[in-house]
């Protein structure tokens, strides 16, 4: 008698489509997914515990290594939390420099996402072409911060260093070039018939479940929910810029992907405005902050819009020079929570498309 049965496949931890050490335990019926259980923690480094034994400034480099693709945003999130805790006013110029690094990080992260997503779908050339643009952004960041990926640029009360001479001009040049590259992505990747066939109507995520499961970032906005903290609750100086929040319509993989492409274009607008405004802003880049930071007893929770979603830092101070507790609300981690439901009924190839469209970074997932 003919009989079929499901079987389990370990998708990962070493697998090209998991973007690092991440495992999905797949229960398959032929190629159909019956159940997809994410297993993370292969990169759990105990950052939250380590932070308890470091001074407030020493935590900054650890935040870089959470989301190593957009370290500028991580730095910003952490230092703003401490500033909220200590009620420090940050000088304008520092705010602008932070915004510029943050938006550059966002573009660098999204560019990498586009490339890696293309690779997941099977287009290798898109993957490598994206590195060409990324290198240009990394060059700028290296000039400013001395590091290509882990910047540690933001400081509590300001930024580490002022922009070198001519740096802003170079940023402007790169920023003005970027839309041309995005057009190339649209031609090569987004406009491709096969790419669309692979991603459209795949991994449907309804607006209700996206909100219910606390998904955030482009994953949420791809389902049509207008919730971008830069607009909804402007932190830092985002209220000074004009930009739009791109939204998806169908809540499928393609929308999530395309949201990021559009978001990069908006980041370019923000950068152009920021560069224009920073030219008129002079002044210090650091607020008056004591050498030994001892925030008052208390707690602060602050969230920013990172490239992956809502990045929150919760810091408790006990009055000493080390944080009593640091918790990071990592968007990648929370976004994974809905993976199972999104995958069910799809094919193995769909899992790759869905996982890619969530855009996880394992350093952030596992903390």
């Amino acid at each position: 008698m003919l009989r079929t049965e499901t079987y389990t496949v370990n998708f990962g931890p070493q697998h090209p489509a998991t973007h690092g050490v991440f495992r999905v335990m797949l229960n398959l019926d032929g190629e159909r997914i019956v159940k997809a259980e994410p297993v993370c923690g292969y990169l759990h480094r105990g950052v939250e515990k380590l932070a308890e034994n470091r001074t407030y400034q020493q935590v900054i480099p650890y935040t870089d290594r959470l989301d190593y693709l957009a370290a500028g945003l991580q730095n910003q999130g952490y230092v703003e939390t401490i500033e909220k805790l200590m009620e420090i006013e940050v000088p304008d110029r520092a705010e602008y420099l932070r915004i510029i690094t943050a938006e550059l990080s966002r573009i660098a992260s999204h560019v990498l996402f586009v490339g890696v997503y293309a690779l997941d779908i099977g287009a290798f050339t898109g993957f490598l072409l994206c590195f060409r643009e990324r290198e240009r952004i990394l060059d700028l960041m290296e000039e400013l911060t001395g590091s290509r990926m882990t910047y540690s640029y933001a400081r509590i009360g300001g930024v580490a260093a002022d922009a070198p001479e001519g740096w802003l001009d170079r940023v402007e040049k790169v920023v003005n070039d970027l839309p041309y590259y995005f057009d190339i992505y649209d031609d090569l990747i987004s406009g491709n018939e096969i790419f669309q066939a692979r991603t459209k109507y795949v991994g449907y995520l309804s607006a209700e479940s996206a909100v219910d499961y606390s998904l955030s970032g482009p994953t949420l906005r791809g389902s049509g929910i207008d919730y971008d903290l830069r607009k909804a609750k402007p932190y830092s100086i985002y209220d000074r810029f004009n930009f739009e929040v791109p939204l998806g319509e169908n809540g499928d993989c393609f929308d999530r992907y395309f949201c990021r492409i559009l978001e990069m274009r908006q980041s370019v607008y923000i950068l152009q405005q920021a560069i224009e405004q920073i030219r008129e802003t002079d002044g210090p880049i650091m607020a008056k902050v004591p050498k030994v930071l001892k925030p008052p007893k208390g707690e602060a929770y602050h969230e920013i819009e990172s490239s992956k979603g809502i990045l929150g830092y919760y810091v408790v101070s006990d009055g000493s020079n080390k944080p009593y507790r640091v918790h990071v609300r990592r968007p990648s981690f929370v976004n994974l929570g809905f993976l199972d439901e999104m995958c069910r009924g799809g094919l193995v190839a769909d899992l790759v498309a869905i996982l890619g469209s969530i855009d996880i970074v394992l350093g952030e997932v596992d903390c």
Partner: protein
Amino acid sequence: MDNKLDSVIKELQEKFSEIKVSEQQVVTVPVEQLTSFMQMLKDEYYMDFLTNVTAVDYPSDKNQNGEEDDEEDKGTMEVIYNVNSITEGYTLMVKTSVARQNPKLPSMFSVWGGAHFQEREVFDLLGIIFTDHPDLKRILLDDSFKGYPLRKDFQWVGGRK
């Protein structure tokens, strides 16, 4: 925006007499009323987005608010929920504390699906048990790991030589 939140908190205070509100508008809810309180937040105040769930360990000698412990020499653990409202735009921090010896509280999974992973993480790192959670098991650490690293009394040996 803040005014709206003020009025919400006032209304809440009227409905739930046991809750405490601090200066930073942090609401402390007793464990017993947590589920009904949260359900009300979601249903009546459109707090549809649970951003963050975390917990802090306060052994007896450390108590953040300087309050006295009810139990002798036990300490507490605080569980913190950050709830946002996408439609109304306000955000609220809700706290509850459980005894350190027997950290148990109801899961918020029935209210917000987003609690699923985050509560698992809290369980994993702090050992707080969320009753009624559909799949409460370790998420980051492996199953054979002993202890809960984010508790203050966690002892470990680093790799530094």
